[in-house]
Structure formats: C-alpha cells, structure tokens
C-alpha cells in the first residue's frame, strides 16, 4: 500500500465505524476540496451510495459558482441534501459588516447547532484536517459535544488505537475522518481519483482560492496554478498558511479558536 491508499483505508474505516455505531449520522458538506474528497471516500465506503444526509450550512454569502457546483453534484451523486440556513439571523440583517466573529457565529455555528438539534443527528461527520490550523490540530477523530455543541480542547476523552467516543445522550459526536490528512495529501488524492472540485481553486488572472468560504470574507492568493498538478507544485514551495485568505481568522489572535470553542466546524 502506498501512503494515499493507507490514508484512504483509515478514512473509510472511520466512516464505516460512524455508520455502524451511530443511529442518525449526517455529513457536513461545503463542496470544498476536503468535503469533496471525504464525500468521495464515503461513496467508496458504501459502494457508490451516501447512506446519510449531507448538510450544507448556507450563509447566503457563498459565491454563486459554488452553489451551482453544489446543485450539480447533489443531482449527479443522488445526495440527500439538507440546506441549513439561519433565516432569522439573516432577516435581522446579520452580515460580515457587523463583525466577522458575530457573523460566523450566527450564520455558521448557530445554523449548525439548529439543524443538528432539529434533525436529531447523533453523529456529524466533517472534513476538517489537523494541519489546517492550530486548534484543529488538537481535535479528536471522535469529538464528543454536549447539547450546546461546544468544544472544550482541555477536556477531551482519550483516543487510541482507533477507539473513540461513542453515542451519548443529549449530545452528538463530531467525527473527523480526514483529520490525519495534509492539504497536499488531499490534492494528490483528488488528482489520483479525478474528484470534481469547484473551478475557483484554479488560477484565473493570476489568482486562485486556496481555501473556499463566503465571498466577502475569502480572498484569493496570487497563483499561476491552473490545474491540480500546478497546485501541488506550488504547495511544495509555499510558506504561506492555507487559511491566509480567510479573513475571519485574522480579526484577532484567537478569533478562530473562539469560533471553534463555540462549536464551529
């Protein structure tokens, strides 16, 4: 087995554990590169099917290209798509102009809590990776959350030899099957498997998106990478962090840390 096969095998094993041990699992799907790689492996794990709903937390600020991509893939892959949008917050005028922390908290974190509570999910799969950012590096593969969905990095159960937290009354477990992958691993996998990703990742007019998010808060980076091979070549040279273009991280030293503690994905 080469390293990608080994990573894929681990991820499939985790996804199957999630499906076997939990009653009502769902997967968060942002149709970004990590989400897409994870969803591809979910289909491998279940031989072409996705046997649980995929949830898009829709802030209404995503670029239109991404929504078009979402609808195309949802149709082609026969997904049970659940769109979760915090309409009350939007009706009250929530927007990045009110502060990025407040906006992310309402439109992403709260929207997520609401859909988890309303649909009664006991397991929520998410394609986060340890190498993305410092607080995610501390995560567990099976990360138990209380009824408020909050994440307490200082009080996590141990996890070893593939044994992690199981179902719990009154809360859910975030399951992170891509935790052990790197950004480069994901792109190599996408290239190897031919996984479709939004065109925004590829350079146009000397710029590309390295990480995708809401249009007002996500900036492209300078790049000439027009395809996956180009991206891989750039990643091997870069000394710029992956989430550099995500403005909410940079508002304060610990904005993203605070978002994650409140239950952000």
């Amino acid at each position: 087995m080469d390293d990608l096969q080994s990573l894929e095998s681990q991820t499939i094993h985790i996804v199957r554990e999630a499906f076997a041990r939990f009653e009502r699992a769902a997967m968060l799907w942002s149709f970004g590169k990590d989400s897409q790689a994870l969803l591809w492996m979910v289909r491998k794990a279940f031989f072409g099917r996705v046997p649980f709903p995929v949830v898009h937390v829709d802030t209404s600020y995503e670029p239109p290209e991404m929504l078009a991509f979402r609808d195309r893939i949802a149709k082609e892959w026969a997904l049970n798509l659940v769109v979760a949008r915090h309409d009350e917050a939007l009706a009250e005028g929530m927007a990045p102009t009110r502060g990025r922390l407040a906006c992310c908290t309402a439109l992403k974190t709260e929207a997520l809590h609401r859909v988890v509570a309303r649909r009664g999910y006991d397991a929520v799969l998410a394609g986060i990776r340890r190498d993305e950012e410092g607080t995610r590096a501390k995560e567990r593969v099976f990360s138990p959350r209380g009824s408020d969905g909050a994440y307490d990095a200082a009080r996590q159960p141990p996890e070893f030899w593939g044994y992690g937290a199981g179902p719990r009354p009154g809360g859910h477990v975030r399951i992170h099957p891509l935790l052990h992958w790197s950004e480069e691993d994901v792109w190599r996998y996408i290239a190897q498997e031919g996984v479709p990703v939004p065109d925004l990742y590829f350079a146009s007019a000397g710029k590309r998106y390295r990480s995708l998010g809401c249009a007002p808060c996500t900036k492209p980076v300078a790049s000439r990478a027009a395809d996956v091979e180009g991206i891989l070549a750039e990643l091997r040279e870069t000394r710029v962090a992956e989430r550099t273009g995500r403005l909410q991280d940079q508002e304060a030293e610990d904005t993203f840390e605070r978002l994650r503690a409140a239950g952000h994905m």
Partner: protein
Amino acid sequence: MRCPAIHDVAASPAAAPQRRSTVRTVVVGHVDHGKSTLIGRLLADAGALPDGKLEAVAEMCRARGMPFEWAFVTDALRAERDQGITIETSHVRFRGRARDHVLLDAPGHREFIRNMVTGAAASDAGLLVVDAAEGIRDQARRHAALLALLGHRQVAVAVNKMDLVGHDAGRFAALTEEIASLLASLGLAAASVVPTDARAGVNVVRRGEPLSWYAGPTLLETLERFQSSAPARGLPLRLPIQDVYKFDERRILVGRIESGTLAVGDEILFSPSGKTGRVASLEGWPAPDDPPSSAAAGQSIGFTLTEQIFVERGEVASRADAPPPLTDVLAARVFWLGEEPLRVGTACRMRSGPAETEAVVDRIEGAVDLLAEADRAGAQSSTDALPRDWTAKIVLRLRRRIALDDHRFGPTAGRIALYQGGSPAGGGLVDLSDYPDQRPTRRSTNVTPVAHRVDAVMRARRNGHVGGVLWFTGFSGAGKSTLAVAVEHRLHEIGYSAYLLDGDNLRNGLTADLGFAPADRAENIRRVGEVAAILANAGMIAIAALISPYRAERAKARAAAGPHPFLEIHVAADLAVCEARDPKGLYRRARAGLIAGFTGVSAPYEAPDAPEIRVDTGAEKVDACVEAIVDRVRAAIPLGRGDRALRAFAVFPSDDSRPDKRRKEPKTNDVAQEPVSIEDGASPQ
C-alpha cells in the same frame, strides 16, 4: 528579546519525490525539560514554518512583555500561551529530506496524561526529552514505560539544555548510560541519544561548536531514520467484521484486514460463531474493470460469500486452520484514564476492534501510579480499585465469549479499550498466556451415534439411584482428595455406587501426556469431565477431584454430564491456609520459582460463582464437611426403588419407548431440592 532567525534549511523541500512515507513521532518527557522549545526550534531550522509565524510569536511575546518563547510556535491555544504549558496533544507537520514528519507534542503536565496516551498511540516512534542538568526524572521514566505499553519499539532520546551543564561530554556519557539501562528494563533500546541545546539550536538541525565533540546524528537525522509502522503481512488472516451492507442484491461484509491476506475462493471461518463461508468476490467502487482477486493487511475491504450466512459486526474472519483463540476471560496490562476508578466487581463495556461486550473486573494486580514522584517500595500486589493515571495487570471476565488474540500475535493484535460513560477510559494489551483457548475441539467427522438398548432409566432402577457427578475444585492443599476419598467411602457404605477420579492419580494414565500449561490444564479437565460423564451414564456417582482452575472448562464438564445431576463442590480454603499446609511441598517450590504456572502462585484460579456446595476446610473439620456433602448428595440423588430413584434427573432423558413413564416424571431441578427420606429397604444403613 532574542531574535529568531531562519537558518539554512537542511531538509530541502524542493527535491520531494512523489511517494513519501510519513512518520509520526511523539515527543515525551518531564514537564519543563524543553519539549515544546525543541519542536519550535526543529520546525524553524528545518524551514517548515509558514511566513510570518515567527514574527507573530515575537509579537505575542512582546505584547506579554516576555522574551521570545520558542514553545509558542506550537502552543497554538490561548490557554496554553497564558499558562506556559501544553494542554493538548498537538500535531505538527514538516517535510524532511527522506520522509514527511508529524511531531506530536505531548504534554508533560501531570493533569493531562490521557492526552499523551492519545498522542503516543497514534505515533510510530517516540522521542524522549531529558534535561541534562536534572537527569531522568520519574515522569520521564513513566512516559517511557507508557511508550512500551502502547507498543512502541522505536525510541530516540534528546539530552537537552546541554548549556546548563557546560556542554560537558562526561555528564552526557553518564546520562546516556543511565538512559540505556532504563530503556533496557522496559524492553526498549534507543536508536540514538543526542546532546542538544534547543534554545541555541545546536544538534537539532545544525551542528554547533560547543558540542563539536559529539559525532552522532543530529535530532533531525535521527527522526529521518525512523520507519513508519507497516501492516503485518506474513501472519495468519485476521479480518474483524465492521458491518454487513445490503444496499442491493449483494450482501457485502466490510472490515479492515489487520493481518494476512484474503483472496477470492478462500474458505474462511468466522469467530466466535464458528460459521464458515467461501469468498465469492472482492467488491469495490467505482467498479474496477479488472476486479482485484486478493487484498492484504491494512486495506479496508468489502467482500461477498458464495452462500448467504448470517454474520454480524464483531466477528473475526480467519482461515479455519489458524483461527484466533476464543475466551470469556483474559488478563491485560492496562492504563486507566477514567474520571472514576476502575473497580473490582463492576462492569464496563469492553471493545476489541468492532467486537463489544460487557466485562467485569475480576482482579487488579501490580498497580503503578503513572504520575507518582517516586516508585513506592513494596507496592500492593493486589488492589480493589485502579485510579486515574495508573497502570496495572487486570483480569476481566466477559459476558460472552469473543475471538481475540494475545498482543504478541501481531502489531495491532490484542488491543482492547474499556469504556466509561460512552468514551474510552482505559486500554491495554491482552495477555492470554495464563488462559486456554476455549474453542471447542472436534476433529472427528462422519460419526453416527449408536443407540443403547439399556437406558438411564433401566440402570437407575437397578442401582437404586441415578448416575451423577460430584466435582471437587479448589487450590492445591485445600483438601479435595481428602474429602473426596471420605465421601466415596461414605456413599458406598450407604448404598451408592460411587467411584473417585482423582486428578493426581489420573495423571499416571488417562492424562499422563499433559503438563500444566493452560491448554494442557483445559484438556485435563475436558478428559476427566468426559470420563465422569461416562460413569454417570453407566449409573454411577463419579467423584472428580482436581484443581480445575478455569470456570469455562468446569462449565464444559457440567455440560458433558447432560441430564445427570452435577454438584460442583468448592473446597474453599484460603490460599494462605493451603500454603501453610503444603502437604506435598509444592508451594515452597513454586515460591522458589522451581514450578512454573502453579495455581494461586503464578497461575490463575477462578473460584466458582455459584457452586452447589461450598465447604471451608480452613474453618470446618473434615467429618463435618463430609456430612454436609453427603447430606446434599442424598437430597439431590435420592436412593430408592422404582421411580423414586428417577426423581433426580434434571431433564428426564429422552426415552421414546416409554412415553407413559416420561409423562409422569418431573422435568425440573426443583424436585431434587425437596427433602427426601430414605425408603425402608432401599438403604443398607
């Protein structure tokens, strides 16, 4: 403020080959010995930090009015920056020359040992950091022990803060020797011991003048030599079944191959159910043009069988000729991390891969506090509760029999987890050396039973009682043989046909080929159980007297006796009493190490949960014990003419030729509990 600089990059990112292995190294050691500093320096000097990271750390330090702190590079959480310690295991990646690296920054603070376990269990190698001035502190000692318990074999050591000992080669040599002997005592060996000064960046990536006397590899060179863990190929097949999918007409079994290979056409055995099947196909998606015909260790696969059999999550697929042992009792060296102590007699959920069952803690021995400042001399040999952050050897009794290997079977074998409140709270490595495989042995096939024309009822009418088994179990020296001999004599006197099967006597013939290893003991009990059943079938009272330490094997002897009354008699003298008597001098020799696997000393004894009779020969006289046993036998197996003698059958034996008789007879145990009087004439008494 000290100004960080990025030094020449020894590990060039440019010449990266396509396929590189990633090796995960956990960094452990006493708090304040400089682990985080070492990692920060390693990342900076290997050129692995994103632009601006060092500047950001410098800014943080300035804001807090403190000198530049290398540890902040990895201590990403605010809480850690403020407390100056690492709370959670952090995973840091960087690219080396030969391979990619993930460093797991395990905490040294005493509150957080479970996070170290989390980091260490996920890594391929361990790096132990020791302060050159302070030397090996107890915490480092226990971290090293934990690495060994988690199955680590690759370990390197950094002797850090060499500046504090004036970069002295003599001090380094003395510490190296001390470290080598510590690791050797744990079954580990250091790949290398590197003197470092992480703050100044000496021997981390670059060599430096003050330590120029050191000629060995730098820390980075040491890490580059570690290997990532590879799945076990040359071993027998172990494929724990994770799930069974029936999305369409296919019934697909899925799981990850832990060892060995699986190929289309293979005959496989599922344990513990004992079902067998033949592999019809290996399934994949997207459906390959040329489907694979075999799969190897490490792969998560799906396969179908030629015939539909019912198999569940938790079974283990293997070849029929090399199956995993079956057991409902096991010993394990465990670490305990739960909020509540692990207590003897309480139940918890145990997992072995996908297999899950309730387990009751039977014993806790040799407990060690992972956080203690010093080893406690004469630690208790046995205790009732294992607190958080301790390790011990424990014995678990399982609610059902499962398939599971000893941890020495393979790299991922015998790893169990104990759950508390829905989360893993402890784990460990299974040691089955004291327990026999409980898999039923049956090698003969094509056997057709022949029906007797004389049945149990006819025999009972002639003998004046039905056949039965009295099974004496207990420690060596408890008085089994003494009581059994007296009971045989007494039963004979009052009119029973009884015959004593004494364990020691039989070892001259029936069981002369057996030793005292767990498998031999199990076979010994099986044979005596079968002979006792034959005597009972012949209408006699078989009296078996042997240590018979395993509960599961005694249960098999009971099952062999079928409908005949089976009275388990626990000769329950304390081990101390037996040892004081020591009629054959065996305890003395066992304690002297001259007898291996001696029950109660170096091999387990599983006392009966609910024996029919329990006698304490330490507290009662022999005569009283004999009378108590004989009274109970008379009640359970009454003497009498005609049908009265038949009342003892637990389940009346099948006897199609006498339907009228069968209807009249009781079918439960209850009758055997009634007080009975001996009919005149039936007893010669």
